[in-house]
């Protein structure tokens, strides 16, 4: 049992399992840094997973699938943005409604489009890539071979986001509207605009995260296949202190838990208890993050422009 756990394969599958979480978690960072809580990420991922399958199934091209997932994710994020930024509705209520829309809507559409209950037909994802030279090293090379392009893209985006958020004027403004919108407004930053941008970016990233699940992980769309990953991603974001690289680290932890979970299947522990591992870990991580991580001060608080 121990050999099967401590193997390079575990690490590779940990990275694979961390990827959809990392996309969604990073989406959460952009949204919440701008001051909008986005629990609709679960639904955004689910829509992303579904439309990636639809696009790939009909156009036989995973790139179109990813494009579809981005469009779907952006639309859902846009609804969340309008409802919570323009209409200042409670952001958790809006997110919950969109999650219900995603659960019902994707199941509904899936049964209509694929004419079958439960799941879509098999879909072909991207052709895996080997990183030259390093992938030939025995052992550790495994991590760098057979990689989904979406994994590489994820790593690029995470580090780019860290730079954008902390080293550019755009990043400074985005964080400012989440920390102190009044002050940002006084300095001439358009609070609403930056919040819209933050939420829409979370839609794009959450959509790709969902696409990874159906295209690269399962190679099929299964009803409600996100299984709470949107929320796990949010927990990772909190544990990562609302920072891109920190969140990636937390996602790798969850990825490792999922990889171990898959390794543990078939060693005699009932599957239901193995299934619980990521959820219990999420709760432990949240409890552990108390006092150690601080959300942006205006996170979840609608901004009301003062009338003069």
């Amino acid at each position: 049992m121990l050999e099967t756990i401590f193997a390079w394969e575990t690490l590779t599958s940990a990275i694979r399992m961390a990827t959809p979480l990392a996309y969604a978690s990073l989406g959460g960072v952009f949204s919440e840094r701008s001051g909008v809580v986005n629990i609709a990420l679960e639904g955004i991922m689910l829509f992303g997973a579904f439309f990636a399958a639809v696009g790939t199934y009909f156009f036989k091209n995973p790139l179109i699938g990813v494009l579809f997932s981005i469009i779907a994710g952006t639309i859902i994020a846009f609804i969340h943005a309008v409802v919570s930024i323009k209409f200042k509705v409670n952001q958790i209520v809006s997110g919950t409604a969109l999650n219900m829309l995603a659960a019902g809507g994707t199941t509904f559409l899936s049964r209509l489009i694929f004419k079958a209950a439960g799941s879509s037909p098999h879909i072909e994802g991207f052709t895996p890539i080997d990183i030259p030279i390093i992938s030939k090293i025995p052992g550790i090379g495994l991590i760098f071979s057979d990689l989904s392009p979406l994994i590489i893209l994820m790593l690029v985006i995470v580090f780019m986001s860290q730079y954008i958020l902390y080293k550019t004027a755009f990043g400074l403004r985005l964080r400012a509207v989440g920390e102190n919108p009044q002050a940002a407004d006084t300095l001439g930053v358009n609070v609403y605009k930056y919040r819209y941008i933050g939420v829409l970016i979370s839609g794009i990233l959450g959509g790709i995260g969902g696409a990874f699940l159906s295209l690269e992980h399962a190679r099929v769309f299964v009803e409600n296949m996100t299984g709470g990953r949107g929320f796990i991603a949010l927990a990772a974001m909190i544990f990562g202190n609302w920072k891109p690289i920190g969140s990636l680290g937390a996602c790798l932890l969850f990825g490792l838990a999922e990889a171990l979970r898959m390794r543990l299947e078939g060693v005699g522990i009932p599957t239901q208890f193995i299934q619980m591992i990521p959820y219990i870990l999420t709760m432990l991580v949240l409890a552990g993050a108390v006092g150690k991580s601080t959300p942006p001060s205006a996170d979840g608080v609608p901004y009301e422009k003062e009338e003069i």
Partner: protein
Amino acid sequence: MKNREFIENLILNIISPLISIFIALFFGGIIIYLLGHNPWETYKEVINFALGNPNGWGYVLFNTTSFILAGLAVAIGFKGGLFNIGAEGQILVGGLISALAGLYIAPIFPSFLHLPITLIFSALGGAIWAFIPAILRARLGVHEVINTIMMNWIGYALTNYLVVNTFRERGVLYPLPQTDKLPSSAVLPKLYPIFQKIGINIPESNPVNYALVIAILMVIFTYYLLWKTKLGYEIRALGLNIHASENAGINVKNIILITMLISGAMAGLASINDVLGYRYRYLDNFSHGLGFTGIAVALLGKNHPIGIIFSALLFGALDRMAIGMDVFTHIPREIISVLQAVIILTIVVGNEVLIRFLKKRRKAIYA
């Protein structure tokens, strides 16, 4: 003055929900049209199916029963400013514990206690499942949203394990993932005899049962609790302003814990309609999103017990209509969750728009 307040309340609490229902039905009509059916004819057919005969009424009331209890559970949390998105898991755990109590604990006691035991254990099970997120929120300050959702998934896996491996029905060739049948002393009788006595011919096969009476009693209980007791006052104060409540000397941590436990207990009770009143056993994952419908019911009913009766009736009818839709037009019944989401979004947005409109009007009057 009194008159204006009355009109404003009327607009906010009655007209705005009606508008959002209308928008949802219109949206549903578009979907039906896009799928090649005549929305008008389809609606007429399914409304007739749901509301045009006593059997339909019985089914609507049966659906309404669970929705009232689930709606109350979510509303109690909302009133205290807490988001109990974990009603789904609490319903499953409450249902299973209630069934197990009926099978293994009740037989020790005289038979007149069997039903009270199963009822109490359903509430207890729900409260137990709410306890962990509740204590984490009250003591450590971990927000309850993610935790209650995680508890849903854990609850689903745990009840699945128990009903598949430990308490699966015995003595049949192909056992389903469900418990043994409960003794008749531990379950809720059907209501059709009463309806037949007053001339409403609900057939014997109809599942509407005494859980409906319990749901109505719980409506009264919730109203009394929230508006007529000190605890209810403190819960509502917490929901309005947590910092002010703290300054006013309310023990915020305790109230959070208690509110969450009551909400969980109510969610647990939402299982009785199915477990004790219909199947007489616990079936794996019987709830099918009932806890989430509870959120829609609570919001449409403005978190008020009376409002919840009406919104539960509406969702009860919609659910029955969705089954008719599936039968007549083969449109998947998941259309209902789409419409629920549309109702939630339009009701909350509509509220904001109307409140702004009323504020402007008031300003215009006093300017």
